[in-house]
Structures are given as structure tokens and as C-alpha cells.
């Protein structure tokens, strides 16, 4: 809690710093409109076992600014829609929202190349969209209909698309998997790497440390990303972790601490990390961020932190608002453009929401489809009087 308070007290300074950065930043202009600007990242990177860190001065073009803003805003809208659908009881079961953490995913995605991969935990609606699934694919998966990216068979935590090895419902289980994806990249020599994401809660799972160790031994191109939103379910990081400097917890693995509310800082750190892991081996990247909602929909998110704390982050550190203000100040985006994007995003997500509400579920035969490849037995067991053949329908995107 002490740490949280001290962080919150730093906030006004950060806002001032942001304004100062903007004022100092170099801006290239054509016809009163800036097409490119040079920006300082908000807060300095912290380094562990690294001589040099990521660039703190980064370039931002108008196209990039528009893209990142649109992406972050779309994620926010999707999550708002998901929260509402859950309250309407149209989404059932488990639903973990990413609102507040958008800059992490958008910043990492901005640095990723086509050969790169990502695997994450159960807060993956935003990543799914960024990796190429349209909003309907995300919302339809949540409502359990055919238009979902896993055709309604996975639900909130299980969304996938090429190069995105999915969300995972078991805390920490995806980290060794991501390390395996990195091993495959190295073996194939395709120049790719894998981002293995987990939260501050999962950082205490034993298998995370097993993965660090193997990745370091074999110099695998893996970036272990701890998205530290300060709370593992209902327990603050201080009360769950002996060392809350998650970027140092890889021991021999180098680490970088990044302000996860600053999309440009996350992009810069990820660019650095991608180069590093391909040349030298794995590192740990901690993106310090914040989730506005509870852990899941059954958690109001206010019993272990104050409403004021959430409100303060929303007002002073919101990744979307701060980026929008920066871009306007730099002259990269106009307020009219912001309005146009907001309208377009709202329309797109509203339409997807309506479709996700009205869509049809898969046929019942999908209960027993895709259990095995080349079905090991012709008949399904346990069905009593029903005589049911195993069905295999899909070939994975990895074949």
C-alpha cells in the first residue's frame, strides 16, 4: 500500500513532465499539421543487469499516433461493451477486463514484427483484437456464439489467432508454453521471438522460474513480460511478492522496468527487448500498469483498494487520455480527428455488440468435435444410448 501511495503522489509531477516533454519535443510540421514529432518517454526506464536500456527519446508519426489512439480506444470500448453484456447476463461465466492496461498491449504490438509471437493469461480481449480478430470475434466469443474467434467454444479466457497462442485460464501456465514457442523460433531460425505475458500474481508461480532458467540456459528469444497491475486477484503485490521489482526477478536474466501507462515507452522497451533477445537471450520486462475493474466480474474491485485510488489513476494516468493530450499538444492529431475516431470506434463496437447478442450458437455436434486429431477412437465414450462419432473439423493454424 505504501508503494501505491507513493506512486500516486508522484502523479502530478508526471503530468507536468508530460507537458514539459511536449514543449521540448521536436516537431516537424507541414502546413500547420505535424507529421512527425520527437517525444521523451514519461518516466525513466529502470534496468537490471543491463548496461544500456531502451531509447528514451522516440519518434512518433501522425499515422502511428492515429493508429495507437484508435487501437487503445477500441480496446476500451470492447471492454465497456463486455462489462455491460455481462451485467445483462448475456455473457456468462468468467470475464476479465483490460481497461486501464491498454498501453501495454498496444505498445508491445507496435514493436512486434510478423515473425513474432505472443501468449498471455486470462485478460486477453484486447490482445485478441490487436492480433487481428475484429471486435465481433472477441464479443461473439464472450457471448458464446459462432462468430466468436473460437466459435464460442472457449469463452473469455480462450481466444486465439495466428501468432497469438491464446489466453490461458490457469495462472502462470502460459509462461513455460511461451518459452517453448521461443525455443521453436530459435530452432527454426526464423528470427522470431515470443512475448510470454503474465501478471504480478502469476509471477509467484513456480513454473515461471523454471521457464526463466531454461530460457537463460538455452539463450531463447523470449521476453517475459510481467504486466504488473498491482493486484493479483484481491491481494496487492506488496502482500504477495517478496520482491515487487518484478523486472529483477529473473535473477541472471536482465530486466527492464517500463511505465505501462505510456504507450511510447512500452513500444520503445519492446523494440529494445526484441533486438536483445534475438541477439543475446531472454529478458524480463515489467510494465507497471493499473486495472480499473475488479479481477473478474464477480469482484467489484473496491474491497482491497479505495475508490479514490482508482479515480486518481483514471484522472491522472489514464493511458488513453494522456496519449490523446500529448498528440494534440504536439499537433499530430486534431480534436476533430479524435472525435471522428471516437465516433467510428463506438459505431464499430456497437454494431459488433448487437451482432454478438443476436448470433447463433454452434450446432450441438461441436460438443464432441475437435477433441482429438484423426480421432483415436471412432466413437465417443460416455454418451449412453447415443451412438456418436468423434469429429475432427479444424486443422490448427500452426500446421
Amino acid at each position, binding site marked *: 500500500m505504501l508503494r501505491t501511495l507513493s506512486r500516486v503522489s508522484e502523479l502530478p509531477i508526471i503530468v507536468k513532465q508530460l507537458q514539459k516533454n511536449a514543449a521540448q519535443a521536436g516537431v516537424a510540421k507541414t502546413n500547420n499539421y505535424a507529421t512527425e514529432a520527437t517525444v521523451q518517454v514519461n518516466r525513466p526506464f529502470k534496468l537490471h543487469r543491463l548496461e544500456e536500456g531502451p531509447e528514451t527519446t522516440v519518434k512518433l508519426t501522425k499515422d502511428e499516433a492515429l493508429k495507437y489512439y484508435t487501437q487503445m480506444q477500441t480496446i476500451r470500448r470492447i471492454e465497456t461493451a463486455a462489462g455491460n453484456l455481462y451485467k445483462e447476463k448475456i455473457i*456468462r*461465466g*468468467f470475464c476479465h477486463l483490460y481497461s486501464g492496461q491498454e498501453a501495454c498491449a498496444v505498445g508491445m504490438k507496435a514493436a512486434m514484427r510478423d515473425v513474432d509471437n505472443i501468449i498471455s493469461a486470462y485478460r486477453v480481449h484486447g490482445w485478441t483484437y490487436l492480433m487481428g480478430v475484429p471486435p465481433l470475434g472477441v464479443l461473439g466469443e464472450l457471448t*458464446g456464439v459462432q462468430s466468436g474467434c473460437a466459435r*464460442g*467454444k*472457449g*469463452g473469455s*479466457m*480462450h481466444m486465439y489467432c495466428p501468432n497469438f497462442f491464446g489466453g490461458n*485460464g*490457469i*495462472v*502462470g*501456465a502460459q509462461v513455460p508454453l511461451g518459452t517453448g514457442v521461443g525455443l521453436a523460433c530459435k530452432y527454426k531460425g526464423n528470427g522470431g521471438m515470443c512475448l510470454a505475458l503474465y501478471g504480478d*500474481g*502469476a509471477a*509467484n*508461480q*513456480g*513454473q515461471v522460474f523454471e521457464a526463466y532458467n531454461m530460457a537463460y540456459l538455452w539463450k531463447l528469444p523470449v521476453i517475459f513480460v510481467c504486466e504488473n497491475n498491482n493486484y*493479483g*486477484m*484481491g*491481494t496487492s503485490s506488496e*502482500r*504477495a*511478492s517478496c520482491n515487487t521489482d518484478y523486472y529483477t526477478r529473473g535473477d541472471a536474466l536482465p530486466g527492464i522496468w517500463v511505465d505501462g501507462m505510456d504507450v511510447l515507452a512500452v513500444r520503445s522497451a519492446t523494440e529494445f527487448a526484441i533486438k536483445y533477445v534475438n541477439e543475446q537471450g531472454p529478458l524480463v520486462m515489467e510494465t507497471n500498469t493499473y486495472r480499473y475493474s475488479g479481477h473478474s466480474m*464477480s469482484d467489484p474491485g473496491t*474491497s*482491497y483498494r479505495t475508490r479514490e485510488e482508482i479515480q486518481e489513476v483514471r484522472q491522472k494516468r489514464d493511458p488513453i487520455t494522456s496519449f490523446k493530450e500529448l498528440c494534440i499538444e504536439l499537433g499530430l492529431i486534431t480534436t476533430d480527428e479524435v472525435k471522428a475516431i471516437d465516433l467510428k470506434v463506438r459505431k464499430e463496437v456497437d454494431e459488433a455488440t448487437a451482432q454478438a447478442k443476436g448470433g447463433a*450458437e*454452434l*450446432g*450441438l*455436434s*461441436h*460438443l*464432441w468435435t475437435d*477433441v482429438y486429431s484423426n480421432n483415436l477412437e471412432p466413437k*465417443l*465414450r*460416455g*454418451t*449412453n*444410448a*447415443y*451412438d*456418436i*462419432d468423434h469429429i475432427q473439423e479444424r486443422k490448427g493454424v500452426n500446421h
Partner: protein
Amino acid sequence: MKVSTLTRGLLSAIKSNAICSTRSHFTYYPTKLAQGVRDVQKMNMFQAINNAMDLGLEQDSSALLFGEDVGFGGVFRCSMNLRDKYGKDRVFNTPLCEQGIAGFAIGVANTGATAIAEIQFADYIFPSFDQIVNEAAKYRYRSGGLFDCGSLTFRVPCGAVGHGALYHSQSPEAYFAHTPGLRVVIPRGPIKAKGLLLACIKDPNPCIMFEPKTLYRAAVEEVPTESYTEELGKCDILREGTDVTLIGWGTQVHVLLEVADLAKKQLDIDCEVIDLVSVLPWDTKTICNSANKTGRVLIAHEAPFTQGFGSELAAYIQEKCFLRLEAPIKRVTGWDTPFPHVFEPFYLPDKHRCLAALKEIVNY
């Protein structure tokens, strides 16, 4: 072709039952105690478990209670207010590390202290599988009786809940039933849960109580307020009958009680309904007596068919009661698929599937 016929069949079954199946796949049958015997209080299952842990912590000053979010009451509210009452050195949150929780609990129990550890969902127990199977279950044996972790109890929410999908719905009791050295029990409601949990806490063997999470709020009974234990290793005959023996545990018991009602009403068949209660060790004597009496046995569980605990029951019963059986033993179970998301109502061994199977063995 077969698929579409089946789809229509199942869908019409669901439709015809729309009124009953809107909330869950079972109707709760509360256990009633003989009147005036003891002081009772109305409790649902999480309150009864809370009450049992309260008594356990009060009676045994060495007892510790821990798990993910347990300090605030746990996701299912079972440990509400216990941290306030017994202090944060006895009731506390752990980090999210199931293998660590299990190992830690075994270590505590090795010193003779009492450990009550919660694994937040049965689906998360697999990281701690090694500790439970290789450490907890074998400590006494491998040390020639010098050390044991018998004062250890795991509490683990399990089973279908209507919308849990792949990782909040599974019933892994059979994995643990394959491990000599453990006790595995599953309550069907509040009275049983309280007595079983207190028995597990006091039992000198490592115990796992799987708690059907759908019953935490749905199951309400008049529960005795005093401390009491239920005998471990014993099943309960909930309804006596002469024609068919129906065996289940946890939530499935309530499905079978309804099936017995339907069988009586529609077919004039008298079912004997047995709650197995203890999966390991299980009550071979009572089960075989019943099978010998009725000659027909139906076993139902939510876990998949192949190597579900029904397999052990069926194999044992056929060996011991072979000459008395009038029909092959029938298992009605979850299908051999991962636990499905939107298809849960079709996957579960609901009353329609159980009744259909019952007709088959009666007409065999």
C-alpha cells in the same frame, strides 16, 4: 445423420423441461434431521463450512487456514470473518502458487500442526498434484511411520456451476482416488459438509474434501450448531428401494433423487439412492449389499466416462455381486470431452439421461 437426429432429440428434451432447467440441472433435496434432537440453524453450504472451520480453529490452537484470497473470506465466502476472529497469523492469503500452497500445508502438517488449505478451484489443483500424490500421500509409508502429514485437509471447490466452462467446472476426484494414502470425500449439502470437514480436520490421514461449488448457495439445510463429525469411509442410503440401486456423489445425488421420484411416478420402479460420500476409501459393504438386493446398479457422475470413479465401482460390484446382477452395471457420466462452455447442459448426466439409462437396465 445420426448427429442431427440426436441434436433434435436432446433439444426437444431440454425444451420440454424448460421450466425446471432454467437455473440449474438439478433440484436440491435437503437432508432433514430428526426433529428436536439438537440446536439447529438454517445455513447454506458455505456457511456450514465456515462454521466447521470456525469450530476447527477454536478447538485446535495449532490449526492454520490459508489459500488464495482466504483472508478476505475466499471467492466463495467460506472463510468469512475467520481472519478477524483468529488473527492473520492463523488465517491468511497466500500468493497464487498452488504447488507452494500444497507443499507448505504438508510441511505444516509434518510438524504435527493442523493445516486447512484451500485450492481455489479444483481445476487449479493440478500444479499441486505432485505434492499431494508424491509427498502427502506417501510420507507416512516412506518414513516407516516416523513422519506423517495426517493433520492436513485440502478444501477444493469442484463441479459444474452452469457457466464455468473448461477451467472452473471439473471434477477430478478419480485422479486422487488412484492414490493410496489419501482420503477423498464429497459432501451433498450443508449438514454433511460440516460433519465431513470436521472429521477430515481430525482424521490422522491427509484428506481432500471436494465441495460442489454450485451447492454453496443453492443448498440450504437446518444444520446442528454444535461440533459433530460424520464417519469417513461410509456411504449414506438416502432412499431405500428394491428394484435398482442409484449411486452418485455431490450434486449428482440430487439428480438421482429426482430420477428416483420420476421412476416411481412414471414406471412404478423403486430405486435405492445412495450417496457415496467417501470416494477413497469407499464403502464396499453397503454398496454391495444394495447391489445384491436390487440386482441392478446405475452409477452417475459429472466427470468423464473413461476411468471415472464409476469404473472402479462397476468393476468391484461385478466381481462381488456377479451372480446376483440382473443387468450390466450402467454408468451415466460426463462425456469424454473437455468440459464444454456453451454445451454444458448436454454434457452433464442430467435426469433425462439417467432416466433413459434406468429404463434400459430395467428392461434388460
